[in-house]
């Protein structure tokens, strides 16, 4: 048994090493060939992954802006938004490629501090986007003002429930900046605008639709008189919608965050009252723009807000809104 364990460990280590080597060698190529091809500037973008199409929209904004500026970008992210360590490895690999700038959307505000120090030491301009980081390494942070955006959701929630009753909240996680800000922004918004409502203890569903649905169902069961429910990202919000559908619950004001086909359908069907969306395309574009400015030694603001919109049945088709909503 002991022998097997040792063998297994050696094999795991070997697999991990070869995988890392394979990753870094395969991803190193575009960077080096990019800078070789006529000195085109190269920006390595590390996002939070593919779990939400939000990131596809950010990528679109980044790609469009990169084409406009004539720079080269690569866009990577871990398979799920809980893989902090995998993301860190991607960031380390990106540093190894010596890009002209790095854009980074941290899954965890603190976990990357070592790598960020390294970026600073190597004088690579760093643009944080989506979530800020607890570090002075980024020249700027391009982000949705999540506190204000969640406050907007709270304002609408208050109107919908008539400033009274219980409201449930499901957030995607406890550690990311968006999770913390949307939770705190919503709670503060409710406290300020809606003093007569009771916000139930916040629960966390890891952005997993099935898990969030199970949690929402438990909360609705435990509080049959619940009046409203806020889901702080796409996975959480869709989970709440599933819960409402599976319980055939009526008269519940559901407010979501971000978009995606399931949320849009729920709004059309009247199950969801509305949602706050960020502007992912604008975020991608602003991130690349800030990185290009930093490469060209132009000064950039310490904070760049990429905006948000409230959308519901009435304005979903509005071209300005429709452009930032994704399926």
């Amino acid at each position, binding site marked *: 048994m002991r022998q097997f364990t040792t063998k297994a460990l050696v094999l795991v280590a070997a697999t991990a090493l070869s995988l890392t080597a394979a990753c870094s060698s395969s991803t190193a190529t575009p960077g080096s060939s990019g800078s070789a091809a006529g000195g085109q500037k190269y920006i390595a973008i590390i996002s939070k*992954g593919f*779990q939400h199409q939000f990131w596809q929209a950010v990528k679109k904004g980044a790609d469009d802006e990169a084409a406009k500026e004539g720079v080269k970008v690569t866009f990577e992210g871990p398979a799920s938004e809980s893989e902090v360590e995998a993301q860190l490895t991607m960031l380390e690999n990106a540093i190894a490629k010596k890009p002209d700038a790095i854009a980074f959307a941290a899954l965890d505000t603190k976990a990357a501090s070592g790598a960020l120090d390294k970026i600073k030491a190597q004088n690579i301009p760093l643009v944080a986007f989506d979530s800020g980081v607890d570090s002075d390494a980024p020249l700027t942070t391009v982000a949705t003002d999540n506190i204000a955006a969640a406050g907007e959701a709270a304002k609408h929630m208050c109107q919908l429930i008539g400033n009274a009753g219980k409201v449930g909240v499901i957030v995607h996680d406890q550690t990311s900046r968006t999770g913390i800000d949307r939770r705190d922004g919503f709670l503060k918004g409710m406290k300020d605008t809606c003093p007569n409502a009771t916000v139930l203890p916040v629960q966390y569903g890891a952005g997993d639709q*099935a898990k969030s649905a*199970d949690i929402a*169902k438990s909360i609705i*069961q435990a509080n049959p008189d619940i009046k409203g429910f806020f889901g702080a990202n796409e996975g959480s919000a869709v989970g709440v919608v599933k819960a409402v559908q599976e319980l055939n619950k009526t008269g519940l004001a559901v407010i979501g965050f971000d978009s995606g086909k399931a949320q849009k359908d729920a709004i059309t069907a009247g199950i969801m009252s509305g949602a706050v969306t960020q502007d992912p395309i604008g975020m991608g574009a602003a991130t690349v723009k800030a990185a290009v400015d930093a490469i060209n030694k132009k000064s950039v603001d310490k904070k760049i807000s990429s905006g948000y919109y409230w959308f519901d049945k009435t304005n979903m088709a509005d071209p300005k809104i429709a452009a930032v909503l994704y399926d």
Partner: protein
Amino acid sequence: MTQPTPSVATSTVAAVEAGASSMLRRSLQQLLAFAGLIGIFIVFAIASPAVFPTYTNVIQILFSAVVIGLLSLGATLVIITGGIDLSVGTGMALCAVMSATFIVDWHIPVLLGVIMALLFGGLIGLVNGFNVAFLKLPPFIATLAMMMVASGLALVVSNKRPIYFDQSSGYAHLSTGSLIPGVEFPNAIIIYAVAAIVAGVLLNKTLLGRYDLAIGSNVEATALSGVNVRKWMVIIYAVAGLFTGLAGVMISARLGSAQPATGAGYELYAIAAVVIGGTSLAGGRGSMLGTIIGSLIIAVINNGLQIISVPQEWQNVILGVVILLAVFADQFRTRT
């Protein structure tokens, strides 16, 4: 029974007692787990009498146990051989994506598409089994590699986007629809129950189950007694894969969409359910009934703690402690 007894009544009682006590010895762990399940249920029922023990909530508990439950059925078969399957979580996501590819993209009728998704799960298991039995890879490594392959392929095949079952309205009914009209009893629970019975029959009444247990207790002796161990290992992993496929169908039916990035971490809950149910990670010993109870214990704990509003961080701590206690109880029983 062989000795003459004064009266028929006493002999019957004695027989029942003898049978009961041997069954008790055989399945003390299941009984412990079952008692645990009942105990935990009663605690929550007392803590939240108005909500927790209601029909709707019990249905919800069963419903939320379906996906982990299905995964753990297959995991039981593999763990009894002394192996482990880390690929069931992301394998499930890949099967969900394949189901969507078959039904949504290729317009294959729902029923046929579902069967193909199950078979795809079987194929994943088949590859695992081949790697373990013929290439002699440790199960941990073979299925770890498959876990990564499946998680990547799910994103590749789906082009990193969720695939929605809009045009196939029947698909969602597999999970949330109700076969019995007018009664709130989701089909997912019925499908889980049928799958659980099939798994129980497989383990207890078929050659597959007998060889599964034999391989797990002593692989050399099993081979020496003329059993083609390698062939049966492949079959066991492949059959386990069918349950992964079914879990993929059920989670995508519930969500009305195949979510390519979900699934990671589900394998650990499935293994936890198996272990709580008293199946030995060393192999050779295990029961489907125990695994079902294990899945239900996890579902009851999650649901109950959420209903009484325990902070989420503590929910994980409590679940972890329950797993420790279950394994400790099992080892204690084996030692004495």
